[in-house]
């Protein structure tokens, strides 16, 4: 069919157009309906998801780390606080080339390898658009230099924060410990909610022990941000709950006096209130500046501390292990009385040498030729070895160990500090378990003068002494006295650890021993005679001189100088005062001291002097307001 439509047909064209127009319109409406269906899908079916995503876009959760609780001594002397500081933070999403940025930034603000390592670690686990700390504790110079160059480093900012500060420096390092950056293992252990925004955690000492009290609870802000992550307004704010302020039983004056008395010689001193176990001083010399650790200690500083032969990082009061030497004699004497092995009047003849039947090796007195016949009080006063060799033998090692363990020897005192050493109270069972060897009688003999396997920590000895002073009532040593929920809030005293009931059966027995100890200080022949001169209260004490090396010869060598002796001896001294109503018990261990009486006792006296200047220590913290 061939038709040639040469002519236009307006009527037909119009009809055709009308048809096409309406078909077209129908198709258009169909397409628009399809478009609307898409809107329904997005706005109705998937509405909730998109609401969530819109909020995720604009709402940032900014954690507000809580200010860490302050730490005071018992009189409100500030031991640890927080000071404003500045750190560099990076929002990784806003840094186009991280590697190049870090290289350039290092030329403006020094970045240590440790900073970079830590930064990379935290980068790997950071939340989107949360900033990652790069460098802590910027100096003013560094802040200024960065400010000039800031435009070169998008996503990097100087951010203020509160830095832990120890105003007393190294004086309290072994009590307080320090805070440091949260490390990987802690990160996995910690409640992420509680530590959100917090960089540091207590690593040792009180800071670690009472982390739960000191830390507080973080707050947060819901911030509305724009596409550049610039915060525009705060939608919601929950302020952080600051950590609780802690009041320690420590008296800064005693601590200071004790530390000064050591004059840098390695050793430790512990002062305890025997009535309640409150620790009044806990000194370990040498010490270190805990402020070094707060912002991450430099490799050089850390190496120096580790390589120091005097081991400043070692908490000698808590972890130093020393043979107690003659300081155990009062406890042993008391055991002799309580177990019915001795009466105060029983005498022993000191000839200078003591032999076990059938053995050639002798056990010496400190004085050549001995001191003659002595009863218990003189034996303590003059520290007569022979008296205690015999007593130890009569008691036998099993009874000795059982008796001594009541004073807390051989186990941690239970002080509220982490990582306390337990020392060793030897017994046949202990030796079998440790060395798979039988017990020898000679070991019982030297146990009588605190030698052999027997080692104690200064704290342990102080705890034993306090138990002795309080007539057999053992109070676990405590550092935490009170807590406070904020500046000006009432101090809430912390209940002391419950004391065990006294194991004393005869008070006169205990008085006999104390009499001997008073003789040590006040008697004519006392090993620490003269120590109590000018002191307002009677002092009961006991010296101890422990040998660091076993002797190779039994010969007396009187030509040794004090310096040479100090190289060989550890000097110990224990004392409490007032002797009739003990309120403070002090133990001093000097690692290189010639004799307990001459080297260690004066240190104890300095602590007692500081204590006596206050005349009276109240049982509860003073109501004096803390400074600031």
């Amino acid at each position, binding site marked *: 069919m061939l038709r040639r439509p040469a002519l236009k047909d307006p009527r037909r064209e*119009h009809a055709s*157009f009308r048809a096409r127009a309406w078909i077209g319109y129908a198709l258009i409406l169909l397409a*628009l309906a399809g*478009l609307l269906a898409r809107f329904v899908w997005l*706005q109705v079916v998937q509405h909730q998801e998109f609401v969530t995503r819109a909020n995720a876009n604009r709402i940032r959760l900014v954690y507000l780390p809580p200010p860490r609780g302050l730490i005071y001594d018992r009189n409100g002397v500030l031991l640890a606080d927080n000071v404003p500081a500045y750190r560099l933070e990076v929002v990784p999403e806003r840094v186009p080339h991280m590697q190049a940025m870090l290289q350039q930034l290092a030329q403006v603000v020094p970045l240590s390898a440790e900073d970079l390592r830590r930064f990379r670690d935290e980068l790997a686990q950071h939340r989107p658009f949360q900033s990652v700390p790069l460098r802590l504790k910027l100096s003013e110079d560094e802040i200024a230099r960065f400010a000039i160059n800031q435009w070169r480093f998008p996503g990097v900012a100087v951010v203020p924060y509160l830095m832990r500060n120890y105003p007393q420096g190294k004086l309290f390092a072994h009590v307080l410990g320090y805070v440091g950056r949260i490390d990987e293992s802690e990160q996995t252990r910690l409640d992420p909610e509680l530590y959100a925004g917090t960089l540091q955690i207590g690593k040792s000492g009180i800071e670690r022990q009472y982390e739960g009290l000191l830390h507080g609870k973080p707050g947060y802000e819901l911030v509305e941000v724009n596409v550049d992550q610039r915060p525009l307004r705060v939608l919601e704010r929950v302020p952080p709950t600051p950590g609780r302020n802690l009041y320690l039983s420590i008296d800064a004056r005693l601590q200071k006096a004790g530390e000064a008395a050591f004059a840098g010689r390695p050793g430790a001193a512990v002062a305890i209130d025997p009535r309640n176990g409150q620790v009044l001083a806990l000194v370990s010399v040498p010490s270190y500046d805990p402020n070094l650790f707060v912002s991450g200690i430099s490799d050089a500083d850390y190496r120096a501390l580790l390589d120091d032969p005097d081991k400043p990082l070692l908490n000698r009061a808590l972890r130093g292990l020393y043979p107690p030497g003659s300081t155990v004699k009062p406890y042993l004497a008391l055991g002799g009385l309580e177990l019915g092995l001795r009466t105060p009047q029983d005498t022993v003849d000191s000839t200078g040498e003591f032999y076990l039947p059938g053995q050639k090796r002798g056990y010496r007195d400190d004085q050549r030729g001995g001191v003659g016949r002595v009863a218990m009080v003189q034996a303590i006063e003059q520290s007569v070895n022979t008296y205690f060799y015999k007593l130890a033998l009569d008691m036998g090692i099993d009874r000795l160990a059982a008796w001594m363990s009541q004073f807390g020897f051989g186990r941690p005192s239970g002080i509220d500090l982490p990582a306390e050493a337990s020392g060793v109270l030897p017994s046949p069972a202990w030796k079998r378990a440790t060395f798979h060897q039988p017990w020898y009688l000679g070991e019982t003999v030297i146990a009588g003068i605190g030698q052999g396997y027997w080692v104690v920590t200064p704290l342990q000895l102080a705890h034993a002494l306090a138990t002795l002073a309080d007539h057999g009532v053992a109070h676990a040593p405590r550092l935490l006295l009170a807590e406070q929920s904020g500046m000006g809030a009432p101090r809430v005293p912390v209940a002391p650890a419950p004391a065990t009931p006294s194991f004393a059966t005869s008070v006169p027995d205990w008085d006999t021993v104390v009499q001997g100890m008073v003789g040590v200080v006040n008697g004519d022949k006392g090993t620490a005679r003269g120590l109590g001169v000018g002191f307002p209260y009677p002092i009961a004490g006991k010296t101890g001189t422990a040998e660091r090396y076993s002797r190779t010869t039994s010969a007396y060598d009187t030509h040794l100088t004090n310096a040479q002796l100090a190289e060989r001896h550890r000097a110990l001294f224990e004392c409490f005062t007032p002797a009739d109503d003990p309120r403070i018990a002090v133990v001093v261990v000097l690692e290189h001291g010639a004799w307990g009486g001459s080297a260690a006792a004066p240190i104890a006296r300095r602590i007692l002097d500081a204590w006596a200047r206050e005349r009276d220590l109240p049982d509860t913290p003073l109501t004096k307001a803390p400074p600031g």
Partner: protein
Amino acid sequence: MNVTLARLRHALLRLIVRPRLDLPLAAALLLLAGVGLLTLTSAADLDVRVIVAQATRFVLGALLLLAVSRVPPVRLRSLTPWLYAISTLLLLVVAVLGEGRGAHRWLNLGVLRFQPSELLKLTMPMMVAWYLAQRPLPPRWRDMAVVGLLIAVPAVLIAKQPDLGTALLVAAAGVFALFLSGLAWWRIGVLFGSLVLALPIAWHSRFIHQYQRDRVLTLLHPESDPLGTGWHIIQSEIAVGSGGWFGKGWHQGTQSRLEFLPEHTTDFIFAVFAEEFGLIGVILLVALYAFIIGRCLWIAVNARDTYSRLLGGALAMSFFVYVMVNGGMITGILPVVGVPLPLVSYGGTSAVSLLTGFGVLMSIHAHRKLVDSRV
């Protein structure tokens, strides 16, 4: 001097007193412009300069609409080849001298900068209608070839700028005229089939820019690069989806106010509207567009001659393409091409050229046949 002034005053008076306007269409356009300004006010975060600039364009566009509505279609028809030639020539000039960020689209005339491609949105359907109106209809292969050439030359030039969106709109306007002229369905089938066949070849040709390819690919997997090419689509969908049934309220859209939604005053303003006024608002807006398109088609159907009919119909249907392409883009069903939402998106030439187009429709309406042909 006095005489000219008097004549001008007279003309203006006539414009106002006896405008030859289709009142429903004019009312719908006024409503749309109002909605557009309202949305823009929010999207531009109450920036007065933006609102004033847009309102000024609307006024300018309205004046052009009124002026064009007084030009009889016969006169338009006689000018058509010239207008088409001039606008295509300008495209060539732009290709050589044009300026613009990344793409050569703008022509700087000293006084004003404009995109010659906008002219083609009007002159293209005019030209196709002009050609077809003098041919016996329905068109045959030869006509199709001529029309194809008329479409292809400017479309290719525009696409080369590269401005695929406008090229698409321009080409669509021509194709719609062809469709409305009664092109046989089987020919449409053949045409469509060959287009489908040509698509893979075009996809791999140098004619398609890599970024254009990326946009299409992004549409399929926007989450593959959420901060890069997928950003627009994702943020737009979030804006639309979070609007829900009733929207977040005027100036309460967080996606636009906080600038997560890019281009939120221009190409993505529909997403702002959907975020703030919800599905209800979207339905009403789409209904308004549907009404405008329908009304324009009705005007075209009642036009005096074939030229007017084809031109009016093509303009009406290309208006639909705007809405569809923009709506599809912001809801993530069509690739991101720079097609504004008519009379809502912020932008100069688009609003003016659109209103001029409606001026042509008003003119067609004013010069419709006085007697219904069916009688």
